């Protein structure tokens, strides 16, 4: 009898060790992320990391979550998906992280999403607008940024219904992201009976810096609005050249664009440029001031850019879910906490909603489906519209 009791005790102890959640320790929770900290995309990766660092530092300085500090490991994948796979496997299998938070880049995120999902490791926030991360849904993968399909649809609705534009052109990067945005735009126009409004579809290589032919074609076709599905530094170049040629149409960029860099690079030509946005960013708001203050606690006097804001949001969403995941958080309780988020807002995170996992519900892992428009006025990005969303 004594023997039996002892062995039961032994088995229980062993099991409790085996089932103690990876990455959760009495005094800390270890989480990981992958970012381009070197290579050509490093300016984005470094900024995004700073946003996360600032938020986690602030959480830790205020006692952590349920008595545990957050230990944050960032792997450098140099925006190379083959490196991402190696780095993320190391984070999961050697460092035994609890979750991956805020990985950067469509190629890298796509390369590890299935692996993380199959290993039951929550993956919260991808620095990517690809809808394939969320549709079809994966139980452990939670997207935050709106995807390009949604954005394309919102852009179409804004141009046609709000502004009454009749001849729309799109200049898009010839990659998956650009193609997806074009499809979203087209889908909304076709579904609402405006398919003839799309008069020009011009793909450009991702390394292109001059757009003379595109601009001339747009002028020949007499477009009254142009959707720019491209990033910095391509978009400011396009703005400058469109200005040189006197292209007289509204220019609307995707959500990577509302960043001071665009104004710095394009100067006067940026005036009047409109772009989609999804981060709550009204300087007058108290919560926005708080965000700046938290950021500056780690990075003295620095003003965070759009990528730092993205990192900050990744950290905000994860931390909120962790807080709700209970005294002894597990990966399952974290997933459940995320699923229960319904219209939650952070300091700069806009209303975010997930639903319980259902393979047939294609929006259960899409956190944000609404955006608004900003524009450059007197060389500053200012909010132009209210939130816009599209019915599915």
């Amino acid at each position: 009898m004594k023997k039996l009791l002892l062995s039961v005790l032994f088995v229980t102890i062993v099991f409790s060790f085996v089932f103690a959640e990876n990455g959760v320790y009495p005094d800390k929770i270890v989480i990981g992320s992958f970012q381009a900290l070197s290579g050509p995309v490093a300016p984005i990766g470094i900024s995004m990391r700073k946003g996360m660092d600032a938020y986690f530092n602030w959480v830790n300085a205020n006692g952590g979550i349920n008595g545990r500090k957050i230990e944050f490991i960032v792997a450098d994948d140099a925006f190379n998906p083959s490196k991402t796979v190696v780095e993320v496997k190391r984070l999961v299998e050697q460092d035994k992280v609890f979750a991956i938070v805020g990985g950067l880049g469509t190629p890298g995120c796509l390369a590890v999403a299935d692996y993380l999902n199959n290993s039951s490791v929550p993956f919260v926030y991808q620095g990517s607008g690809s809808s394939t991360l969320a549709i079809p849904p994966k139980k452990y993968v939670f997207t935050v940024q709106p995807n390009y399909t949604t954005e394309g649809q919102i852009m179409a609705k804004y141009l046609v219904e709000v502004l009454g534009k009749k001849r729309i052109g799109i200049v898009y990067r010839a990659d998956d992201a650009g193609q997806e945005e074009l499809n979203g735009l087209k889908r909304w126009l076709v579904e609402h009976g405006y398919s003839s409004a799309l008069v020009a579809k011009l793909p450009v290589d991702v390394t292109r810096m001059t757009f003379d032919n595109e601009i001339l074609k747009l002028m020949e076709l007499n477009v009254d609005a142009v959707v720019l599905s491209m990033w910095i530094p391509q978009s400011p170049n396009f703005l400058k050249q469109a200005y040189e040629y006197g292209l007289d149409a509204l220019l609307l960029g995707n959500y990577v664009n509302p960043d001071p860099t665009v104004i710095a690079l394009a100067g006067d030509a940026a005036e009047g440029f409109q772009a989609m946005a999804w981060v709550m960013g009204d300087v007058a708001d108290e919560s926005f001031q708080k965000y700046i203050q938290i950021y500056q606690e780690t990075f003295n006097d620095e003003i965070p850019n759009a990528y730092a804001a993205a990192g900050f949001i990744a950290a905000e969403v994860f931390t909120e879910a962790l807080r709700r995941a209970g005294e002894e958080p597990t990966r399952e309780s974290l997933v459940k906490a995320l699923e229960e988020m319904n219209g939650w807002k952070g300091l700069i995170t806009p209303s975010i909603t997930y639903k319980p996992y259902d393979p047939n519900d294609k929006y259960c892992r899409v956190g944000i489906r609404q955006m608004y428009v900003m524009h450059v006025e007197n060389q500053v990005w200012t909010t132009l519209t209210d939130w816009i969303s599209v019915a599915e």
Partner: protein
Amino acid sequence: MVTFLQQIILGLREGSLFSLVALGLVLIYKTSGVVNFAYGNMGMFAAYIAYTVFAIAGLPLWLAVLTAIVFGFFLGAATERGLLRPIRHLSHSAMLILTLGLLMILEGLALEIWKQDYKPFPSLIHGRPIFIKFPQGRIILTRQDLLIFGIAAVIMLALFLYFKFTRVGLSVRATAQNETAARLMGIRVGTVFAFSWGVGTALSALAAIMAAPRTQINPNMMLDLQIQGLTAAVLGGFESLPGTVVGGLLLGIIEQFVARYLSEELKMAFALLIILILLLIKPEGLLGRRSAERV
């Protein structure tokens, strides 16, 4: 017809930049016999200097441009004097490899000093474009187009006159023709080398500054222009300066038509294809003379 004319104008604008780049390459090649692979990056580096003077030191734009061009001159001359002349006696390929090394060093150095972010550089001229109206449509001339075309034309003419009618020009031409004979005639060949490297690199700096408002300043800004310049030079025969100018303009127009009627992404491939075909069927270039050598 109007679209056709518009393409030619665009082609000429691009082409005059190619010609400028090619002129410097040819000048250096003609005198010292080296194809300078670091040529584009030397211009890129000078553009960063212009950026530093203008945006960081806050000095006027004209001074920034002038500083960059002067810097380009001295960079070129110093490279010849300090790096190439000591290994001149080794072999031709040694000098080639050296310029390749320099290409990488300059790129790394620029990244180290100015970091990865693209740097803006203002257009030398501002304002709305000029429209020329026709019954069938209109032609658009941007001010930047006119400026680039104007500067290129003036520089080319000045170079031509300089080499034709001045003493220094004469000694450069003499050295290019026959180094030993030139030396025996009392020409200081070393100075001529350094001088033509200086002028050549200054041209690269000027081309980089004219391209900068469109490409933004970054370590790879001259990559395409270097290849296009090389193509223009090959088209022109790598020997004659007027041939080089014609080669550049022609390449600009060809590329423009490829971009408009075939595909924008194919135009660089097309430039390389032209080099290939020309080297196969007419290696002396469009305006070059076939040279006969006794073996």
